[in-house]
């Protein structure tokens, strides 16, 4: 028995070692750095207690990046979730060419974010197709393009993010829809329930666990928005987000202590949001 345990341990050892070395250690080390004034090119660093955290809470650039992150999260998640559910309900019905639609909606999720961001940067620019479409519709797009204007830059990135991620969540909703027993719908039909009644009383309650999963992972992903901002605006035109701020502090100015503190503030915010979401959904969820 002991020999078998030993063999099992040996097999799991590579994963355990990589977890300890490349996950746990950096995680704890960065927490430690958050309490120091560590800068990469300085020979030594000092323990500064909560100074970094206090400084961050009065750092205008950090607060703006947090504000933008909240706008991003609160703006994209409801739209993405509702659109994904709507598409899943449409796609679930059998109709000719259903697979093409399903693949089409999912395609952006498997395309590299950098490529999508570059394509959209062109579409949003003056003379780009989205810009021209807005002009044709008489919407008076910003003179220098959507990404070079404080009023439209962030919302344009948000719209792209919704377009990109909706297909992935649609598939998850679709899997959830498939797992709902058909008998429930049949029973409801026998009782004279209409389509809306079936959706409200059967589909929605039974999709709650799936919706919770989608909202939680989308929240975490949205709080970490970075690549889009990095590629499309470099944080200019009021689009800097929390992770972009951390990148700038850590990898442009090499203020690792300050950047680590900012990362842990973001970690706390995400943790609180996720807990609140779990609580809210757990009340009436059917698992």
């Amino acid at each position, binding site marked *: 028995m002991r020999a078998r345990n030993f063999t099992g341990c040996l097999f799991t050892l590579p994963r355990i070692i990589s977890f300890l070395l490349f996950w746990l250690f950096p995680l704890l080390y960065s927490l430690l750095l958050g309490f120091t004034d560590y800068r*990469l*090119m*300085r*020979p030594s660093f000092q323990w500064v207690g909560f100074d970094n955290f206090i400084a961050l809470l009065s750092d205008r650039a950090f607060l703006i990046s947090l504000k933008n992150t909240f706008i991003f999260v609160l703006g994209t998640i409801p739209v993405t979730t509702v659109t994904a559910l709507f598409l899943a309900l449409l796609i679930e019905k059998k109709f000719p060419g259903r697979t093409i639609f399903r693949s089409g909606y999912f395609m952006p999720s498997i395309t590299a974010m950098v490529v999508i961001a570059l394509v959209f940067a062109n579409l949003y*620019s*003056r003379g780009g197709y989205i810009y021209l479409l807005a002009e044709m519709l008489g919407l008076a797009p910003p*003179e*220098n*393009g959507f990404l*070079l204007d*404080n009023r439209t830059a962030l919302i344009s990135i948000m719209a792209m993010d919704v377009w990109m991620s909706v297909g992935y969540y649609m598939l998850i909703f679709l899997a959830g829809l498939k797992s709902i027993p058909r008998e429930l719908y049949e029973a409801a039909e026998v009782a004279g329930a209409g389509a809306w009644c079936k959706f409200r009383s059967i589909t929605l309650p039974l999709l709650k666990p799936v919706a919770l999963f989608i909202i939680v992972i989308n929240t975490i992903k949205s709080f970490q928005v970075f690549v889009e901002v990095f590629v499309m605006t*470099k*944080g*200019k*035109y009021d689009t800097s987000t929390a992770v972009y701020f951390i990148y700038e502090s850590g*990898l*442009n*100015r*090499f203020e690792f202590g300050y950047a680590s503190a900012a990362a842990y503030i973001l970690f706390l915010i995400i943790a609180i949001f996720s807990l609140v979401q779990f609580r809210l959904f757990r009340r009436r969820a059917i698992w």
Partner: protein
Amino acid sequence: MKNVICFTVTALAAVLLSCSSGDRRSGVVTLDWWQFWTDPSVKPTIEQIVADFEAQNPGINISITDLTWANGHEKIVMAFASGTAPDIVELGSDWIPELSSAGKLADLTGDAAGDSADFSAWTPGTYDNQIYAFPWILGTRVLYINTVLMTRAGYDEDFVPFNWPQLKELCYKIDSLGKDMYGFGANAAEKHRLYKKFLPFLWSNGGSIMSRDGSFSTIASDKSYAALKFYKELCDSTGMVDTQRRLEDAFLEGKVGVIISGDWLLKRIRNEQHDIPFITALIPGPKFPGKSFVGGEYLAVSRQSKYKSAAIKFIRFLTSRDNQLLFCKANYTATPSSKTAAKDPFFAKDPQLQTFVKQLNLSKMPKVDQHWVYIEDVLETTLENVLYQGAPVAESLYEAKLEIEKIVSGQ
């Protein structure tokens, strides 16, 4: 089983020993060189220069590692901080103080003494009166003017705006030619780019960012105010606001009359065979031709390098007159750091390149400062606020001064 283990260990040891001691036994030194020239039209020239060096110096091998401008700075700083820096590294002119002030670069003062007369632009490579990097290839910016649009606006084909009023009038007249026509290509709030377009106007008007001793900021002056006000008016009234790349695209499509750009645009026009009719001209000042921004690529040796003398030998070879010329011809670059190379007929017979050579003599670099990364941030935010968010000029400059002084005083 025992035999198998013994054999494996012996074989591994033999392989490792042969790897580690081969160079030393044969007396061959391998130098690591990190560089940025990855363009397929230039890389063969770099490889040719390296091959020539190795042929002339049989005891030295050069191992080239390519970097990109997108993340090269991060990689270099990380490597120096973790003690894995290459022997020789190519650096952007504004990165040197960060490394030299932290004691990461080898002091080349004694080695550069013999070369100093033939090179221009030593300042960025110098920190605390010691030289830490050799200037290699410099880069300045000039005006590009679309001559068809200029003549349509009522000017002679050989007209060149010498001062701000002439530049403004030219841009205004081109801008009035039609709906989708713009007078001046104004840079959007693009990181590392916007301030380089404004500094020529600031310097040309006698303004500056820092005091001579670097202890306080001089940006909130009447000269800076006038320069920023003029630049804003130019952008507001006649400007197409976009990223540098898209401004250049628009210039090549004949939609913008005047833009500021470097010699990379000359190369692009040549390589992509654009038939755009244009001239290059010196950046105008308030009354006479003014100053431009000059940056450059420098070569430095890591302080940890065990082969400093071999590294310096390679740097001397790379920056020699002949090799700078070879490189400039291949890259269609107009601004070698070697003064004797700049006098070559290759530059004199090409009027566009000649503009760059002349502008180089009228160019400036930001003051060497270990806090430059932060000062640049303040400068760019100020410009973004004034140019594109309607912030008042005088107040914004004063706020920038306070911010910069906070940075310099370490608060």
